[in-house]
């Protein structure tokens, strides 16, 4: 990714070996400087500081004591952390399982000269532009065990629905469904763009060979869509591991559902900003970074096996 854009940059700005005059250097630094300073203060320095904090014990009123890796050792033994890791992983898997749904929706939207494309796109995209806080509250109501419409609908077909947001065994699935509902439109837009990038002549050739539409979908569309699928899977996974808003709004902080719902970021928030154990929270953030980097690296390693680049 970086490589290709670097090459493009070289093409655009390096004409015929012209050496840039020193004045141009100064302009370059001057125009980059405001953003670079902001990133240094609000991004780079915080990264360093978070790593530093993670190696310290911090009191509620400030003051840091160097404890080495003690916070990480504590995390290893912390049952809340085990729960958070498990919940985040299950949530990520559920949301990833929703990705094929976006492909199907995108494929349906990609039908040539489909009438009402804009209308459908609006419907599917609405949750993406809606405030997560509002979404969380709405689903909390829909999921209510006593008067919620979902359990009422289930009761019509003879199923007694659980207490979705307070039963620790089902709560993460309830949140996962909302996660899919929120992201399906966003992913469908990405897939639709991917589909529109597949050259028509592949289908024309398949048509001549007499391949059925199903066969075309599995033999042409899905393989040529894999670069988009890869991007969507990576982004979905990273976002899923950072789930916070939905849990904050849907689940009671001290309710019975929380142990089954608490994500890594929720635990981070609790430790860092409710209990004010900043060192411990920083260690959680570092672990989160490590998890995301490792999982992303694995994805990039695996992509050679299934992603087709033309």
């Amino acid at each position: 990714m970086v490589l290709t854009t670097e090459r493009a940059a070289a093409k655009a700005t390096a004409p015929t070996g012209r050496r840039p005059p020193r004045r141009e250097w100064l302009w370059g630094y001057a125009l980059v400087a405001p953003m670079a300073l902001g990133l240094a203060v609000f991004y780079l320095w915080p990264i360093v500081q978070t790593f530093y904090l993670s190696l310290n014990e911090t009191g509620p009123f400030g003051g840091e004591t160097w404890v080495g890796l003690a916070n990480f050792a504590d995390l290893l033994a912390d049952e809340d952390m085990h729960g958070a890791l498990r919940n985040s992983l299950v949530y990520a898997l559920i949301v990833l399982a929703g990705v094929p749904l976006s492909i199907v929706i995108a494929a349906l939207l990609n039908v040539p000269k489909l009438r009402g494309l804009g209308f459908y796109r609006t419907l599917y995209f609405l949750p993406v532009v809606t405030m997560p806080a509002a979404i969380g509250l709405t689903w909390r109501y829909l999921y209510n065990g006593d008067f919620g419409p979902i359990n009422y609908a289930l009761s019509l077909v003879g199923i007694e629905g659980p207490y979705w947001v307070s039963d620790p065994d089902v709560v993460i699935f309830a949140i996962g469904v909302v996660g899919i509902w929120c992201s399906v439109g966003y992913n469908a837009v990405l897939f639709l763009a991917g589909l529109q990038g597949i050259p028509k002549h592949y289908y024309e050739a398949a048509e001549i060979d007499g391949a059925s539409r199903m066969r075309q979908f599995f033999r042409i569309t899905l393989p040529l869509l894999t670069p988009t699928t890869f991007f969507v899977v990576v982004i979905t996974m990273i976002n899923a591991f950072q789930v916070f808003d939905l849990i904050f709004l849907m689940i009671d902080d001290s309710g019975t559902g929380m142990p089954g719902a608490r994500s890594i970021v929720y635990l981070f928030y609790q430790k860092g900003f409710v209990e004010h154990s900043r060192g411990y929270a920083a260690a959680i953030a570092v672990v989160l970074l490590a998890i995301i980097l490792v999982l992303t690296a694995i994805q990039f390693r695996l992509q050679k096996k299934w992603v087709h680049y033309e």
Partner: protein
Amino acid sequence: MSRRWTVHLALLFGGIIMITPFVWQIVVSLQTVTESMRTPPQFWPSWQWHNFVDIFQTVPLGRQFLNTVVVTIAVTAGQLLLCSLAAFAFARLEFPGRGLIFTLFLTVLMVPGELFLLPRYEIMQGLGWLNTLQALAAPGIFGAFGVFLLRQFFLSLPKELDEAARLDGANPIQIYWYIMLPLVKPGLLALGLLTVMWSWSSLLWPLVVNTDPEMMTLSAGLASLRGQYLTNFPILFAGSIVASLPVIVLFVVMQRQLIAGIAFTGSKG
């Protein structure tokens, strides 16, 4: 039944699933508390419009709305200016260390946002900015994503443009402002819309940095009602609708530009 009808049926079925929570939210926002808790659920409003007035008395919703507007405008304007300046320099100017600095910018994109929160909070505390609007806006003004996005747009412009302008004696800032910026308008629009969307809805940072209800954004304001008002869904939903409507309206109006921006991140990511 033709194939086309099957497609429409499938899309409509999915669409109904997507829209039902919104419709239900609107219906309940116009009910009394008792109606909202009936079994079987009552899917009909009794037009309790006063819920939309009551929510403004339950929380300083008007103030929070204003806070959110101010912060969103500041963040978006800041992003557009700073990202476009840096992106222009990376794409059209040569200076030693350009590749290195750009790579440093990109690494920031790889790091989950939670790593920034504790130190940012300490910075705001140190500045005495807790419970201020500038604390909400300041970190959001900066970001590497927009630089990356706009750089792609600047790179796509022909190099004859700057060369001709240079020959006419224009300096880089003039080239940026008069020649390049008008040509990357689609990029600016896409970045602007995405920034508005993110900034309007973001929760975690506003939640931790401003705890005074008067200084909260809508997102944090709604979230702070969890617990206290949880039995009063009609009022909560009225607040939710007021809070989410501006971005939904913006999306419906500017749909094509926003979608194009998102599709672009997919193709170039």
